[in-house]
């Protein structure tokens, strides 16, 4: 069984995640997704959301909803992706972006 990779947005990406596309800056959702994708292809990933300045929905949608557009199925993501945050609404919001793309 593959070990779970832990990815902290604040520690491994940026304390200031911002924007949707690469053109919006170097800490955009699209860039974070590019960082997350190979890890998810290798096995389960636990993403830690705490420690940042905050998240915009545009970032969250692109970073996580975009995983489905990149070819992951919703079932695969539920199996491999774990989200951790002291703000439960962030986790709910992210899963809504993933699950809504199932329809």
């Amino acid at each position, binding site marked *: 069984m593959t070990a779970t990779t832990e990815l902290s947005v604040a520690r491994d990406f940026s304390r200031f995640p911002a*924007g949707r596309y690469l053109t919006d*800056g170097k800490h955009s959702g699209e860039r974070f997704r590019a960082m997350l994708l190979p890890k998810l292809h290798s096995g389960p990933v636990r993403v830690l959301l705490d420690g940042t*300045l*905050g998240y*915009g929905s*545009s*970032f969250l949608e692109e970073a996580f909803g975009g995983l489905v557009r990149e070819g992951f199925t919703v079932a695969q993501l539920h199996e491999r992706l774990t989200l951790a945050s002291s703000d439960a*609404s962030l986790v709910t919001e992210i899963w809504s972006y993933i699950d809504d793309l199932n329809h």
Partner: protein
Amino acid sequence: MSHCPQPQNELLAIVAPTITWVLVLIGWIVVHWTTARRARRQEELGMLAAIEKRVIALRDLAVSYYTSPASDSDSGTVVRLKLELKSIVGSVRLLRKRQPNGYEVEGDIIGLRQAVTGGMFESGSKVRRPPDDEKVQNIWSRVDDLLQALQGEFERVNRGF
């Protein structure tokens, strides 16, 4: 002629003060409980008022952001918007700690965050929107939804006081 007290009167003489003390104790408990509950209600009202103030400030800042042309101050504004949202979420979490069976407004929080920071938020291609733009109207609606939900929850968990 000697007068012997009736056994019934003796019993009453013993029980009556006890009943009095029990009634005093019950009265004290009721008053204490009511006072504590009123104080808690007042504290919650204060917390709600503070949240309402923050939510309205967030709304005003967001509306100003979307109805203004792109400028150098935008990056500062988006930081403030995200910090305000975080702060509002934290305040609601405190309310939920006080009332674990109340203030379940996660859907309204998400709706507000999506309205303020969804779409092309933090994008270099920001465009100035008119005040009656759908995006701006949506921010107003989501703010109203959250404030109504909080008020509704307050009334529900404090019913009878």
